[in-house]
């Protein structure tokens, strides 16, 4: 795809933006665990992972800038809530370590499937970015899979926390698999793996296998998202979060920071 058409560019933007916003929110929310995880070693790992996610978001916003969108800082600090397209779960607050581990494990499994699907789009800047992300993301998946395994096999108390967390996180997973844009966003390319139903099936397969291996109860297939997936026009929490995130920058919006 040396010279993408206007339709292809619009589709690409929609796909990249959903991923960029997911990575940003996961990185930003992950940073709220700084110095609050169970031990210092996990603090170090979690902090490193959050930096990776924020870095991936910045990389993807830069790809969008090359496709005509504003720069990365403008995307983060000046975009209206109605133009953010992350999945609900990426932004959802959590104060429970077990919920966070379950959420991150589910996200990393999904993200792995999504990156493989996106790699079928013949757009070299995207392929190069995905390759760079893969090198770091593979460790994220290993890390959260290992934490899940540990908590699942960590005795009755730990197991009960994980069971509760799975039930709490499960209903929030639905819109991860949607793209937020029109269907052309994924049907333009010969990549059936990009279809939400295909990604959902691939996710269910992996997660069901893992949960069974850890002797945890699988709550069944993730539900299909409604038409408002990845749209936050009516969200009450996103404007608050963005206001908090932008509080300092807005002291001098055009200033030097």
């Amino acid at each position, binding site marked *: 795809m040396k010279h993408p058409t206007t339709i292809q560019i619009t589709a690409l933007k929609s796909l990249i933006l959903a991923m960029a916003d997911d990575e940003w929110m996961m990185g*930003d929310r992950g940073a709220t665990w*700084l110095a*609050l995880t169970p031990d210092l070693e996990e603090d170090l790992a979690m902090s490193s992972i959050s930096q990776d996610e924020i870095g991936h978001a910045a990389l993807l916003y830069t790809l969008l800038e090359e496709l005509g969108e504003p720069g990365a800082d403008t995307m983060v600090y000046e975009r209206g809530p109605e133009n953010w397209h992350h999945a609900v779960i990426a932004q959802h607050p959590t104060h429970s370590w077990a919920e966070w581990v379950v959420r991150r494990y589910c996200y990393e499994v999904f993200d792995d499937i999504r990156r493989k699907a996106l790699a079928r789009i013949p757009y070299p800047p995207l392929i190069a970015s995905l390759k760079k992300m893969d090198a770091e993301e593979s460790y994220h998946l290993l890390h959260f899979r290992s934490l899940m395994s540990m908590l699942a096999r960590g005795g009755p*108390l730990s197991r009960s926390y994980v069971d509760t967390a799975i039930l709490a996180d499960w209903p929030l997973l639905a819109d991860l698999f949607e793209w937020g844009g029109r269907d052309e966003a994924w049907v333009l390319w010969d990549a059936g793996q990009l279809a939400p139903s295909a990604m959902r099936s691939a996710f269910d397969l992996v997660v069901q296998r893992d949960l069974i291996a850890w002797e945890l109860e699988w709550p069944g297939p993730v539900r299909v998202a409604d038409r408002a997936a990845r749209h936050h026009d009516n969200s009450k929490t996103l404007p608050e979060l963005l206001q908090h995130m932008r509080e300092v920058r807005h002291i001098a919006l055009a200033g030097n*920071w």
Partner: protein
Amino acid sequence: MKNSLEAFVDRIELGEKVEATDWMPDEYRMLLIKQIHMHGISEVMGAYPEREWVSRAPTIQRKLALNAKIQDEIGHGQMLLRLAEDLSSVYGRGREDLMNDVLEGRVKFHNVFHLEAPTWADAGVIGFLVDGGAIITQAMLLNSSYAPYARMLKRIVAEESFHMQLGESEVLALASGNDAQRQMLQEAISRWWPAMMFFFGPRTMGPSAQRMMYFRIRTLDNEELRQRFINRYVPRIRALGMTIPDSDLRQDPSSGRWIYTDPDWDWFSRVVHNNDGPMSGARLALRRQAHDGLSWARQANLYATSEQSRQGGVL
């Protein structure tokens, strides 16, 4: 014939270093534990004032840099506590005990981490002044008689110098910003200056600090460290166009020594000894939330690992 303590002190005075496996007097071990434990815990507690600003950092680059800086500080805490664990193992004390000590008031942490950091400028000034002050102290400790501590400090000082550069970059941006940014910076410097005067300890060192000098665990006294700090930062702060909140601050032309207003020694002392600062309770509550609130996760880790080895399988 000299006794073993005299022979040990002779070794140190000749500039020899002590390794973890060497014989050492109990007093020397206890002083090392006191110093390194407090240092490690201070690094960990230092994460709390700054973590409040990661989610509000004004650019992506600043957010990444501050996140990475806090990660470094926690990493320093982790490395130092490993040293303290090794030294404490003869008393049957491990990581859990050392972490519990801060929650139960048995180990102090630096005065600066008991204070408020109410603006973004405070995050910058912590890097600029606190990390700058820490480098002055830690550079002195590079010559410590305890070799594992001195080796570890090489890495720590190298990373702290990046933190100081980050702080400098943040305050420079604010100093060249609009009136609101400059005012925010001035207020932060005014807040942190008296705390930095206390940071290096009283003019006359206490008995423990004097014994640390005797054993060459440390090699400079409090006042010498404070003078180095003032000498380094007075021109820097003035170059930013900011004011130092001490109308009596001046340099004696004959001795070159700085004359400064004493901080409120009693107040800061109470803050450190009684965890009685404006943010002591809130920061300790966060530490308790992580350590006590998530002890079940550490227990789960131990349980799963022991089950794994019992079964000879993999997780």
